[in-house]
């Protein structure tokens, strides 16, 4: 009998006819908001326990084994030692969220609540430095606080944007070893998030994990730099790539054949209606580095490489394929030019669609359960033909997703798999 991992490998190999695999919770872009995890646990009558925050920036809740089993999830994730705020998840403590849920957070999740109810969080949990994240009083996750030192145009130093990159430490490698040992015996496919391989990910550029970021850290300034300071960006990416290739050697020794998928990069190239740059700029500025990383991985491992990019990126799909990515996520079908049938027809033999299962901008939050079911079944039908599809919502399941809609989604995937 095929394991869950076997089914995932089949679809990654573009082999049809198998069970459609589903991912929730293996990465920070295929996750579930903590409030949704709580609602799902309650709906399925699981043990009443506090949700652990596994990813504090987006307040994603850990999808524990009992919930994963009930939902029918086929994946499990290993992530880097430190979270986006620069601290590890350990020694959990309780935290009362602005929306009234009590969750478990890392002992380093140190916050200050302002009189208006806004929550501020600190890099590495160090409250002696300025905060790096802010959650409004009626918000559901953090946004980065931009800490941009004054830019001296004549003395810009790419090293300032390289502080967070370097050779992987023994502590980080040991963390991956421990995680893999914890997952020994799982029949789920393991998805590993590798740090340091996201080139210009705008969530990481402001460095919410650094205490005193230097260089170009303002979001608008970074975007302008991709047009006006390309030499600088090349210098940053080039050095980052050198580190990435060296680190891949060490990571491969630890991860080896125990993992199937590596989530490399979350840089968003799309907006709702267009892209953040031309395909030509992508080819000049990003492609050389993506190609090097993908080539190394494909020459030396059996891993499939996972690229996340929100938005209207149909015009970039050939480029993603050309630079060697195997998987595209989240497949934002609500964006311009991202019609599911056309995507599958044009790229389906060469790219695995990991996502695309349900629209999280409209149908999931505001639709009816029947509308959710219909859309899920339709997307499964379109994307799973001849393999090459892993079901996931389009990006994380967001806060305020009605539980009846989330359950309708889960039931629809089971219905598609003939498991109801």
């Amino acid at each position, binding site marked *: 009998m095929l394991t869950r991992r076997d089914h995932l490998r089949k679809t990654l190999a573009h082999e049809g006819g198998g069970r459609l695999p589903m991912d929730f919770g293996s990465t920070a872009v295929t996750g579930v908001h903590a409030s949704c995890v709580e609602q799902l646990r309650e709906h399925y009558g699981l043990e009443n326990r506090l949700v652990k925050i596994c990813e504090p920036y987006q307040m994603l809740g850990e999808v524990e084994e009992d919930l994963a089993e009930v939902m029918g999830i086929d994946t499990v994730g290993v992530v880097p030692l430190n979270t986006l705020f620069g601290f590890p998840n350990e020694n959990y403590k309780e935290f009362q969220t602005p929306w009234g849920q009590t969750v478990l957070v890392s002992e380093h999740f140190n916050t200050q609540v302002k009189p208006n109810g*806004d929550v501020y969080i600190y890099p590495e949990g160090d409250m002696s430095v300025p905060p790096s994240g802010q959650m409004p009083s*009626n918000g559901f996750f953090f946004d980065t606080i931009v800490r941009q030192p004054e830019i001296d145009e004549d003395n810009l130093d790419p090293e300032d944007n390289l502080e967070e990159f370097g050779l992987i430490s023994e502590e980080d490698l040991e963390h991956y070893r421990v995680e893999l040992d914890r997952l020994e015996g799982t029949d789920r496919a393991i998805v590993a998030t590798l740090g340091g391989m996201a080139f210009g990910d705008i969530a990481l550029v402001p460095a919410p994990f650094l205490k005193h970021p230097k260089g170009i850290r303002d979001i*608008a300034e970074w975007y302008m730099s991709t047009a*006006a300071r390309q030499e600088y960006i090349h210098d940053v990416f080039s050095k980052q790539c050198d580190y990435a290739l060296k680190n891949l050697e060490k990571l491969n020794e630890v991860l080896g054949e125990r993992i199937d998928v590596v989530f490399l990069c979350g840089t968003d190239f799309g907006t709702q209606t267009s892209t953040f740059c031309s395909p030509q700029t992508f080819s000049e500025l990003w492609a050389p580095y993506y190609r090097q990383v993908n080539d190394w991985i494909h020459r030396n491992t059996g891993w499939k490489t996972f690229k996340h990019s929100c938005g209207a990126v149909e015009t970039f799909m050939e480029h993603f394929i050309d630079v060697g990515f195997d998987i595209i996520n989240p497949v934002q079908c609500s964006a311009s030019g991202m019609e599911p049938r056309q995507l599958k027809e044009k790229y389906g033999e060469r790219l695995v669609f990991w996502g695309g299962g349900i629209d999280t901008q409209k149908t999931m*939050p505001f639709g009816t359960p029947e509308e959710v079911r219909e859309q899920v079944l339709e997307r499964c039908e379109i994307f799973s033909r001849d393999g090459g599809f892993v079901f996931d919502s389009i990006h994380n399941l*967001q*806060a*305020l997703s009605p539980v009846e809609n989330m359950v309708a989604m889960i039931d629809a995937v089971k219905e598609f798999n003939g498991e109801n």
Partner: protein
Amino acid sequence: MPLDLQQLHDAVITGDNKVSHSITEQALEEGIDPLSLVNEYMMPAMDEVGRRFETNEYYVPELLLSARAMKASLGLIRPLLTACDVEPLGRVISGTVKGDLHDIGKNLVGSMLEGGGFEVFDLGTDVAPEQFVEAAKEHKAHIIALSALLTTTMPSMKLTVEAFIEDGTRDQVKIFIGGAPVTQEFADEIGADGYSKNAVDAVAQAKQWMAASA
């Protein structure tokens, strides 16, 4: 160096804020009418920037660069226009709604509206409905531009529309909304006057409203 005002136009298009600032500075020193700098050089430049964005020659980074170049010039010009009581094409209150901290889209819309001859009062992010209402009255605004990037903050747009209704000033303003998850359908549902899919579209909509009300 002899003044070449075409350089101001070109600097806005290419996003060179140093040149746009220095040319404007020189022009004002030499007594050039500040309104003519706006009408004859900056606005046509921003129109061209908008056209290039619509035809996928320019993208968000180029829009940001051009907006910055325009602002560098406007920063010198605006106080002079205010001092001479020169009326803008229209007055706009812009902001990202309560609970939402995202501002790049809002900032771009604001810049393009300024480039299009509007005066924009940017309330920033996480703006409560009542703040929009008060600002509209304070600045005698014609248009309210609401931005939201999150499905969880879209309801704040409805609350803002309702705040104007409750205040009795709803019919004194046009309200339009924008942001990634926002749609025309949602705009209709909450009683907004319009929806714009991007910054260029927002300027066109705003100009249409002002022309219709003239």
